[in-house]
């Protein structure tokens, strides 16, 4: 034992040159994390001359999960941009009425302007009621951008949202594939006075001309509730028992479980706009074949990015920025579920994450 110790000690006797060599190598080993630490320390120190860009985000309602995911997108983008630009600090203030109310939104815009916000992003519950509030904000030097629901006659500099006509076209094209281009279909049109929904209907009607084998039995409007939507479906199916498909401009009929008891899975093909967690069971159980999901997280991310581009980078931003809908089917139900989770949605069945 004693001998071994001596031998080992001899072995570890180090020449001076070896010591220097080991020191240099050791230095190189710690070089990388060392650099990182220095950079991080530097990053924590607030340098002089940092601009702060305060953005107020106003949603339609505070509990709607689509706006909560938009909020997450806005906050994360603000943090990323603040990290990217050392001389810019981006903050987002989140505001939303409990329930949809354009007058409350108008008041929120006014308050934000008075509190000195630099920019506002808003999803308009009513385009006409908010036009004046948006114009006043712009006149006061505040940049305004709309998302999801526009106020096209206002002085807002840009809008980020879907191309509704294109969504309508996508729905009919998908439905035509599902019924092999022939048979009767019906369109569930939601609120006949909502311009975005009627744009979708127009896109559908246009596209139907490409499928002579498909007969559209009509566009059926209803109040935007689950019960009214299902009641309308019921009555149309009674009138047309040979109906092969439904194209829905919105997913009111899928916002609960009632439709599960009313129809047979896969017998009538259904395509619809929106793909929120509550609707996913309809895809999983083959009641609905295609949902057009909107990447609502990007409502926040893209709008914050556009404002920084315009106000900090002084670059031109396109007036209309298009959000591309994502078709959700049984094939990508797992991917979409994981994506929704990443965007901040909850109440998604865990078993979907491993599909």
């Amino acid at each position, binding site marked *: 034992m004693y001998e071994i110790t001596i031998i080992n000690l001899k072995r570890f006797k180090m020449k001076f*040159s*070896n010591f*220097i*060599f080991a020191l*240099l*190598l050791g230095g*190189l*080993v710690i*070089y*990388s994390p060392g*650099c990182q630490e220095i*950079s991080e320390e530097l990053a924590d120190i607030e*340098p002089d001359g940092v601009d702060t860009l305060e953005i107020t985000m106003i949603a339609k309602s505070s509990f709607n999960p689509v706006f909560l995911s938009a909020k997450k997108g806005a906050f*994360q983008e603000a943090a*990323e941009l603040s990290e*990217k*630009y*050392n*001389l*810019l600090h981006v903050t987002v203030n989140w505001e939303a009425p409990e329930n949809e109310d354009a007058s409350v939104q108008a008041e929120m815009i006014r308050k934000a302007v008075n509190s000195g916000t630099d920019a506002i992003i808003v999803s308009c519950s009513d385009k006409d009621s908010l036009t004046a509030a948006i114009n006043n904000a712009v006149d006061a030097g505040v940049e305004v951008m709309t998302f999801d629901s526009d106020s096209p006659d206002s002085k807002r500099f840009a809008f980020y949202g879907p191309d509704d006509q294109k969504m309508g076209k996508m729905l009919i094209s998908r439905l035509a594939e599902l019924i092999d281009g022939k048979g009767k279909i019906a369109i569930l049109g939601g609120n006949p006075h909502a311009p975005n929904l009627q744009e979708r209907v127009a896109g559908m009607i246009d596209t139907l001309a490409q499928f002579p084998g498909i007969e559209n039995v009509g566009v059926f409007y209803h109040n935007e509730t689950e019960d009214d939507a299902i009641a309308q479906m019921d009555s149309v199916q009674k009138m047309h028992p040979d109906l092969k498909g439904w194209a829905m401009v919105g997913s009111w009929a899928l916002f609960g479980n009632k439709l599960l008891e009313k129809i047979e899975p896969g017998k009538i093909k259904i395509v619809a706009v929106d793909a929120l967690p509550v609707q996913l069971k309809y895809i999983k159980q083959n009641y609905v074949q295609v949902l057009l*999901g909107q*990447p609502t997280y990007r409502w926040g991310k893209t709008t914050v990015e556009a404002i920084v581009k315009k106000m900090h980078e002084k670059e031109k931003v396109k007036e209309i920025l298009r959000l*591309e809908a*994502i078709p*959700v*089917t049984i*094939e*990508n*139900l*797992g*991917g*979409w*579920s*994981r*994506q*929704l*989770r*990443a*965007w901040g949605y909850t109440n998604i069945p*865990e078993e979907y*994450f*491993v*599909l």
Partner: protein
Amino acid sequence: MSTKVSQQTPEKDRISNGQKFAYGLGGIVNNLLGGAIGFMSIVLNVGLGINPALVGTLQAIPRLTDAITDPIMGYISDKTRSRFGRRRPYIFIGAICVGLIFALMWQLPPGNSEMFYFWFFLIGSIIFYLFYTMFATPWVALGYELTSDYHERTRLMGVMNFMGQFAWISLPWFYAIMENDRLFSDSVEGACTLAIVIGIFVAIVGAVPAIFLKERFAATEDDSEHKKESMLAGIKKNVAEFSKGLVTTVKRPEFLKLCAGTFFLFNGIMLVGAFSSYITIFYVCGGDNDMGAKYMGLFGTINTISTLISIAVVTWISSRIGKRKTFIIATSITMIGSLLKWFSYDPMAPWKVLLPAPMIAVGMGALFTLMGSMIADVCDLDELETGERREGMFGSIYWWMVKLGMALAFGLSGYLLNATGFVVEYGGAQNSSTFFYMRLVDVLIPAGAALIAIFAVGSFKITEEKAYEIRSELEKRRGNEVKEVVALQGE
């Protein structure tokens, strides 16, 4: 199976730690130069608005010129006779020139057209790569000949590879430095300044191997033959010799096995590098870029640390069991690590993506440590059979093959991604079949490529015993006629 005792390295064949360090500095410069343009080229697109396709062309064209200039430089260096040696003058001048041209090529004058920048940078790149070849090819060759000892070569390559990793660690920081708005008004100004810093570093540090290392061999031809020839006859003879040497080199089976082993192992991993990132971000993290970036960053850190550790371990083990066996074990670990990825991509437990990182790093750490050492053994065998020392030719062809493979891997990667059905706009909401194919490619290509590499190198015939036999023959043949060149400054 017999247990062999490895031969000890005689004192005269040992390379001092200082010399290993000096050679390793060349490794840092070599990797820095190899990666810097790629990491900084983003400025051409983001800062100057050059079309990404043109930026891609700017990176591809020099690969074509490399195919010609690399072996020519190898040949020139092998045949050079000077009182400073046949490698060191090129390393010294090459380092200074490449540092200078690197600094100059990024001084992009503002306010010009896209095509102006394209041509400015293209011409700059071609000149840069010429000088880069002038530095790197003799530097690689010098490493093969610094010692005749079977194991000392591995130790030298281990130090070089270890130190060279620090260039790869620093490269990803370049974009953040250039984009730092506290330091520069824009990324173009950032690139201008960073290029000057890199240029100075390259010129100074790159010249260190030329100053502090000594060469062991001089060109073996008789000078008197050349003096009698006309210039034209000399050119003709050189072209003929170059062609013959090129053919001899690429026909040498042991060399080809090493090339195949490197090509498959290295490019198998490079090819799916992007896939791993995409799968982590879009499948495991469901399209959450922040979370994906965090895991990719951690993966990279674990990979780097594991590579550094594996270089040391591989160097030590190879002196016990030999280079071939060590390569096979290390590559097998990488293969298992690649297969493990199939189970580690779990959306319910994203942390599992980190598990294969240390295993994958082992093969990569071993690769450039052992290959350099094994090519040096091939150079000895080549000398035994041809009577010439042609480290330059072997090194240049080997590294050109690596660079070409890397370019092919990057090019093919995009096509493979498209073939899986990936649609970037869908983010995390890709089809299940798309994710399945992405995972399949990510697992099977590197694992399959590692298996081919094992088979290729598995039949490599220069074992430790064989290497010492070759060396003994060479020593006998050289006798006292070994031409050791007096270094400007040696130990």
